[in-house]
């Protein structure tokens, strides 16, 4: 694989003009960065292919009963046999180490129930919602008020005989029950991915609710003693026995490490896709996706020389390091010392990504120097100097009695030179004289100036208050030469210098955490690696007065670098690891998927996008959810999918409802993945497929003349999240498409060549397909044909399709592709017993560039069955929400009733909403209803709300939240709040 990439890069640079994006995703030019990426490093997680042995091993590690092993192996056979094209055997992308990992039973340390509400409370805190208001909000979730409830949940459940375990535990503890139902709703033969899941499944939930038992509170993953591990091949089985009632919620609640966004560090969980972070090359890179998952296992704390910069990681998370073992001196290690390093070797060594679990003390972490180069003439050296003193000793406030802005500096009486300098600087900058007052008996001097101008500069660029001082974005963007006077003054003002004979040590202390980070950052840019130590706050006594001291961040560095253990190159420092701590952990872990360099900085240190194959788009993620509602049972399953978090969820979800049973699927989709396929428009040039609008002119191929033509676009559809495959041609064009997406291929039969549209899954390596060699395309140019070099499965992604008028094809990434046909995968309910009910509620929010394609499927296979499908969608900023509902009434299902309702809220004239009901009826006596409402937000409604004091965007949010209320009401408190919050985020900046 590595070899392939290298070849591509090589050829790519030489040969072809390609779209920017394509370059990024494929032939990344590693040489642009200071160091190379050992792509082969991932090999450690890749084992060649899936085999009987691997499956047997999984089963053996899990100590499964024989029947399950056989079930897996049989599923594996089916998986192999399912018609699969050439790439069938090649599953080298799938990370089987992970599966083994998930299969390994972790220790059973029971988690205290006290922890649970803490988690929830944290979420509340993070959201800034006061407790009283939580209760008030819609009156939802009154039962979530007290911790007592959480305590009793487990006992209650146990008393009632409810089983709520991970699927693995379920199988261990209740093998017979599992055997009876497992794979009965979705057998391995259902589809290829169901077969794969059946062969290698791990994780997921197992719930059994006995006859007549009502579980009143919604069961959520974190109620379970053993947390869910959102794995690649999760398997969930829920059985509601006769007359039972249960509601299960899957979704995620996001806690965390600090990530560098350039001017400061932020908590990782506060990042959103589209935000920028600093990558390992010290430059900004865009966050493509944020991920969160529940993790239970060992957590590592990596402690570098600067204790404050310690960070936590899961053992599989790759960290950029130079291994000490690779750069040793020949000399024998001395007693008790780490083996000595050969400086020359260290400098020339290429940093590599190594899983955190493999790191040892003494390995060198990479601390990139964040690049800053925005010279700003507004900041003169004098001003910067004064700001440096301000950061150290200054305060800015409005004088209470005089009501004038004041900037004041305090120094010790002995700091005469500094005092004079500050006075001079003040006069130079403000044209005013400073007042110097000596505070008798305290050996202190105040330098004060009444200046609005200086007050404004100080407060806006450095903040106020000892613990909240921070440098503005503008200051942080200054080049190192320009900011230098500030740093110097800061250390003169706040620091002290300690001459240790052969080296000089500088120290400065601040109560502002952000400032400490920023100073560390600034020093790094000028080639100094400073340590930060934290002196915890507490009550203290100074000169007999009792005071409360805040946490102090102490920045320390040594001027003489010869004696430091830290080495540096132009772009980064190498900081040795002092200590690695290992501790058990159970909680949420976060990760980012960063574009371009695929890395980000945690507390200053470079780490890779976490083991990309697990959660990124590069992986195959096939989960299965089976629901069984027996006679008279009521089962609800809620999914909150893909908010800002791209944890890709399941593929095959199906429920069976027996006599008089009710199954409800509640499915919320906010945000759709954006596709990175490039298409060519006239005159806009290459754009991502998601940016195409109706009536744009797109390039297509006229099949009569085989020449390029321009055609108007009729529409763009996001056809859902589906497994996609990558097709690579011999000239290294590549495209991602679903298995059924048709491509124009040239085949030879006997003596003739002929053109055929063939779905990707029927194409083979070596086939000729049509391409446009020259990009951007030109009208009248003929198409060419080139052979397919490779076809690879890629995992799941949202896929888009374009409807083109007059030509049923378009040019994407230089390949000619047909408008695709749609296949849909939606939660479905099979009503197999008389009187069964299905309720499907699907909620979608389509914002800018998003196309939501959601829906549900109800199959009436017994008389007197009832289904209701409700879809609520909001579209704005050109978003498009499409609803597809499939309704099947089989022969014999007389007196079936079905009602489909679609409510759409459209926020502006650019957005749209479509409804496509698909109905197949094989029975006469049925009642089918379909209603659709399309609402627009009226100016009068907005005006009404604004007249009460709400801003326009608050008013709009309120209307949208109100529209979603029927859905929100079904959610427990914390989810409802998170959901509302997300909608508000989506609505922010949507007006004005």
């Amino acid at each position, binding site marked *: 694989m590595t070899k392939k990439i290298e070849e591509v890069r090589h050829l790519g640079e030489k040969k072809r003009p390609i779209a920017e994006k394509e370059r990024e995703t494929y032939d990344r030019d590693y040489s642009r960065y200071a160091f190379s990426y050992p792509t082969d490093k991932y090999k450690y997680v890749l084992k060649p292919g899936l085999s009987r042995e691997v499956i047997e091993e999984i089963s053996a590690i899990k100590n499964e009963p024989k029947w399950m092993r056989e079930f897996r192996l049989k599923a594996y056979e089916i998986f192999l046999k399912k018609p699969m094209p050439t790439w069938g055997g090649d599953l080298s992308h799938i990370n089987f180490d992970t599966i083994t990992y998930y299969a390994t039973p972790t220790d059973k340390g029971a988690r205290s129930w006290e922890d649970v509400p803490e988690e929830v409370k944290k979420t509340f805190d993070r959201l800034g919602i006061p407790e009283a208001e939580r209760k*008030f909000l*819609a009156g939802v979730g009154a039962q979530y008020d007290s911790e007592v409830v959480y305590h009793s949940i487990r006992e209650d459940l146990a008393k009632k005989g409810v089983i709520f375990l991970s699927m693995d535990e379920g199988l261990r503890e209740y093998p017979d029950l599992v055997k009876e139902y497992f794979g009965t709703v979705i057998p391995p033969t259902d589809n290829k991915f169901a077969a794969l899941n059946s062969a290698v499944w791990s994780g997921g939930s197992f719930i059994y609710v006995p006859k007549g038992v009502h579980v009143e509170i919604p069961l959520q993953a974190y109620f379970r003693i053993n947390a869910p591990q959102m794995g690649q091949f999760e398997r969930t089985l829920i059985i509601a026995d006769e007359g039972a009632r249960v509601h299960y919620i899957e979704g995620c609640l996001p806690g965390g490490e600090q990530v560098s966004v350039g001017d400061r560090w932020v908590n990782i969980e506060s990042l959103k896709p589209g935000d920028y972070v600093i990558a390992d090359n010290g430059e900004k890179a865009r966050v493509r996706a944020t991920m969160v998952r529940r993790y239970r296992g060992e957590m590592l704390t990596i402690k570098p020389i600067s204790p404050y910069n310690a960070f936590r990681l899961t053992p599989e998370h790759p960290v950029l390091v130079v291994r000490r073992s690779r750069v040793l001196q020949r000399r024998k290690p001395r007693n008790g010392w780490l083996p000595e390093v050969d400086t020359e070797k260290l400098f020339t060594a290429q940093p590599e990504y190594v899983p955190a679990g493999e790191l040892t003390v003494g390995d060198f972490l990479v601390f990139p120097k964040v690049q800053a180069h925005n010279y700003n003439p507004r900041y003169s050296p004098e001003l910067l100097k004064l700001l440096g003193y301000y950061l150290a000793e200054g305060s800015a406030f409005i004088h209470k009695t005089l009501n004038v802005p004041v900037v004041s500096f305090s120094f010790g009486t002995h700091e005469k030179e500094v005092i004079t300098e500050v006075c001079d600087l003040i006069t130079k900058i403000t044209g005013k004289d400073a007042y110097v007052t000596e505070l008798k008996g305290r050996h202190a001097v105040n330098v004060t100036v009444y200046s609005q101008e200086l007050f404004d500069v100080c407060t806006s660029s450095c903040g106020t208050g000892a613990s909240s001082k921070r440098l503005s974005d503008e200051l942080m963007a200054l080049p190192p030469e320009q900011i230098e006077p500030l740093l110097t003054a800061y250390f003169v003002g706040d620091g002290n210098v300690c001459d240790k004979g052969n080296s000089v040590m500088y120290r400065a202390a601040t109560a502002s955490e952000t400032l400490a980070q920023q100073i560390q950052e600034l020093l790094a840019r000028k080639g100094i690696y400073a340590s930060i130590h934290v002196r915890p706050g507490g009550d203290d006594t100074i000169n007999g007065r009792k005071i409360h001291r805040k946490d102090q961040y102490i920045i320390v560095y040594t001027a003489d670098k010869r004696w430091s253990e830290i080495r540096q190159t132009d772009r980064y420092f190498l900081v040795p690891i002092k200590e690695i701590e290992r501790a058990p952990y159970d909680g949420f872990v976060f990760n980012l998927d960063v574009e371009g360099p695929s890395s980000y900085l945690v507390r200053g240190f470079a780490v890779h996008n976490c083991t990309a194959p697990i959660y990124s788009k590069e992986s195959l993620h096939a989960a299965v959810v089976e629901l069984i509602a027996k006679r008279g049972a009521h089962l609800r399953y809620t999914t909150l999918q893909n908010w800002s978090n791209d944890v890709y969820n399941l593929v095959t979800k199906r429920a069976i409802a027996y006599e008089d049973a009710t199954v409800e699927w509640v499915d919320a989709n906010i945000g759709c993945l954006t596709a990175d396929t490039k298409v060519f428009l006239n005159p806009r040039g290459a754009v991502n497929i998601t940016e195409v609008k109706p009536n744009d002119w797109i390039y297509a191929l006229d099949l009569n003349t085989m020449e390029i033509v321009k055609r108007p676009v009729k529409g763009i559809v996001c056809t859902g999240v589906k497994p996609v495959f990558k097709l690579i041609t011999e000239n290294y064009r590549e495209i991602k498409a679903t298995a059924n997406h048709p491509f124009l291929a040239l085949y030879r039969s006997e003596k003739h060549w002929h053109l055929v549209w063939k779905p990707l899954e029927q194409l083979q390596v070596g086939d000729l397909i049509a391409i446009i060699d020259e990009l951007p395309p030109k009208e009248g140019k003929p198409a060419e044909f080139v052979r397919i070099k490779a076809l690879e499965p890629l995992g799941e992604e949202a896929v888009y399709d374009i409807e083109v008028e007059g030509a049923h094809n378009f040019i994407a990434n230089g390949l000619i592709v047909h408008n695709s046909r749609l296949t849909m995968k939606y939660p479905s309910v099979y009503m197999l017993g008389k009187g069964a009910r299905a309720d499907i509620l699907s909620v979608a929010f389509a914002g800018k560039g998003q196309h939501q394609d959601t829906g549900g499927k109800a199959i009436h296979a017994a008389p007197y069955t009832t289904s209701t499908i409700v879809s609520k969608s909001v579209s704005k900023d050109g978003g498009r929400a499409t609803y597809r509902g499939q309704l099947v009434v089989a022969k014999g299902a007389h007196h079936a009733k079905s009602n489909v309702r679609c409510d759409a809220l459209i926020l502006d004239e650019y957005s749209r909403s479509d409804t496509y009901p698909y109905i197949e009826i094989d029975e006469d006596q049925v009642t089918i209803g379909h209603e659709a409402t399309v609402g627009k937000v009226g100016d009068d409604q907005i005006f009404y709300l604004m007249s009460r004091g709400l*801003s326009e965007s608050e008013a709009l949010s309120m209307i949208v939240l109100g529209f979603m209320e029927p859905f929100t009401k079904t959610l427990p408190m914390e989810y409802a709040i998170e959901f509302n919050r997300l909608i508000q985020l989506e609505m922010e900046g949507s007006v004005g």
Partner: protein
Amino acid sequence: MASTLEIRDLHVSVEGKEILKGVTLTVKTGEIHSIMGPNGSGKSTLALALMGHPKYEVTKGEILFKGQNIVELEPNERARLGLFLAFQYPLEIQGVPLGRFLWAAKKALLGQSQDGQTDKKADAKALSQFRKELQEKMKLLKMDESFAQRYLNVGFSGGEKKRAEIVQMHILKPEIAILDETDSGLDIDSVKIVAEAVNQLRGPDFGALVITHYQRILNFLKPDYVHVMIDGRIVRSGDESLVHELEAKGYDWLINESKAEVS
């Protein structure tokens, strides 16, 4: 210090058609003004223009509130200055309970963001006070407590909507309130309830501009000033006695008079 709403030579057009043709009027806190006039004379236009409805374009003149020209301000900014409009046709907002909405509005008026980090204890206290106050006010307007949980105006009867407007006014405590035909569609008991609720706010810190067709509500309200609007202008101002004169004579004498003046 008394706050003043000063309308100077206000001209307002809707979709290009001039409705208000030079209205001049000053309302101070402590005063109740009433505007009467026949249908289509521009009374509601004045109300909506004062609150800043985007469809009502001020083509000439000024609206000064507390000395500031508010013509360019957004409706929410006007609300924050202390202006309130009780709508003639309150709008229905699905899914937004009255209580939740009012809490959000109150916070917005106080300049607190909807989800900002605030002092939680203080916030909880404020919220519990708010709920108590809301209960009281609803009682005052003889509305059932359950209305606080009902979606804003959705399924409310005409009278309930109007009373809910007055509940909102009581909660949001404006300095100057404009009541746009709050009495229309109310039975006599409701008119009395509404009028009493308005009277309760009466005092040096509250002023109102009451737009109405009928003298019924004015019998309870006893306005300090009464204005008659005809064809986009105030043609006659006077005290409460004007109401009785109008009752006796109808608007026609004023319409004829104003025509005579114009010609």
